[in-house]
């Protein structure tokens, strides 16, 4: 080994790595402590949303793996199908509570506007995912819903592109495109929370450049 200093790293991969590590150092990406004000049940709804989303994705993946002949007929298939439904119910339940909590906390404070926006868009994406899920139940319920939805889609001028009566198209949206978008948005949302830290209560004096008292934060 020579005593010379290592050569400076060049190239876009090195630059990207430096930027990523600067924005999300390991202690921020996987923290082992949190501020004292996080000791409230209100802060639990976010992680409950992520947890229920994991169950939604795993149960949905099993349904995709085994197919409708399984989830309509076999007892285990029916159970996993119900698990998929109820994990979605729980997901929506805790997601809306998380939304209420963050709204009343004004959680976009402290350069967290993008965190709020990604969460809002993820919420809208989850609604689309759920609605397309209604359309692929293969029963009279989904037939009725698709008939009603068709009028709405036609009324806003996207009926030709977004054909809710096309089972195949809706199934693909439900099991590929919407979940992909939702996972990307949710991942981005969580990484932004890790970058900025959880939002402090209004008027709380907290240390750090991006956690100034309420009303004195920098713009997002």
């Amino acid at each position, binding site marked *: 080994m020579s005593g010379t200093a290592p050569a400076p790293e060049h190239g876009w991969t090195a630059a990207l790595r430096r930027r990523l590590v600067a924005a999300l150092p390991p202690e921020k990406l996987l923290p082992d*402590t949190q501020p004292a004000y996080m*000791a*409230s*049940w*209100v802060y*639990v*709804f976010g992680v409950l949303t992520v947890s229920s989303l994991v169950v939604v994705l795993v149960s949905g993946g099993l349904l995709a793996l085994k197919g409708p002949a399984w*989830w*309509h*007929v076999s*007892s285990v298939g*029916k159970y996993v*199908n119900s698990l998929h439904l109820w994990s979605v119910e729980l997901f929506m*339940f805790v997601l*809306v*509570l998380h939304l*209420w*909590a963050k709204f009343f906390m004004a959680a976009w404070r402290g350069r967290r506007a993008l965190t709020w926006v990604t969460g809002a868009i993820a919420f809208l994406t989850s609604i689309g995912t759920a609605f397309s899920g209604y359309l692929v*139940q*293969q*029963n009279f*319920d989904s037939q009725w819903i698709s008939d009603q939805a068709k009028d709405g889609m036609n009324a806003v001028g996207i009926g030709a592109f977004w054909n809710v009566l096309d089972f195949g198209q809706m199934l693909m949206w439900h099991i590929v495109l919407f979940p992909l978008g939702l996972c990307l948005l949710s991942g981005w949302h969580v990484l932004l929370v890790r970058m900025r830290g959880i939002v402090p209560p209004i008027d709380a004096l907290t240390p750090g450049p991006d956690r100034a008292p309420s009303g004195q934060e920098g713009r997002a």
Partner: protein
Amino acid sequence: MVGSRHELAGPPAAPVDLNGTGHYVHWGVVQISVANLVVIALMVLVFVLALLLPFPHGRKRG
């Protein structure tokens, strides 16, 4: 999804009759199913409890 029953032993009976017409609350221009109203009431209740109930504290770090 509601599939046809293939097993002899059916699922346990639901606490409410799911085979009849739905129950709705009519209040002026507002019309909402009792099921949805119950879910919304539960959400408000859980939100209020989350604000009021004490959170268990872990061990203090030195």
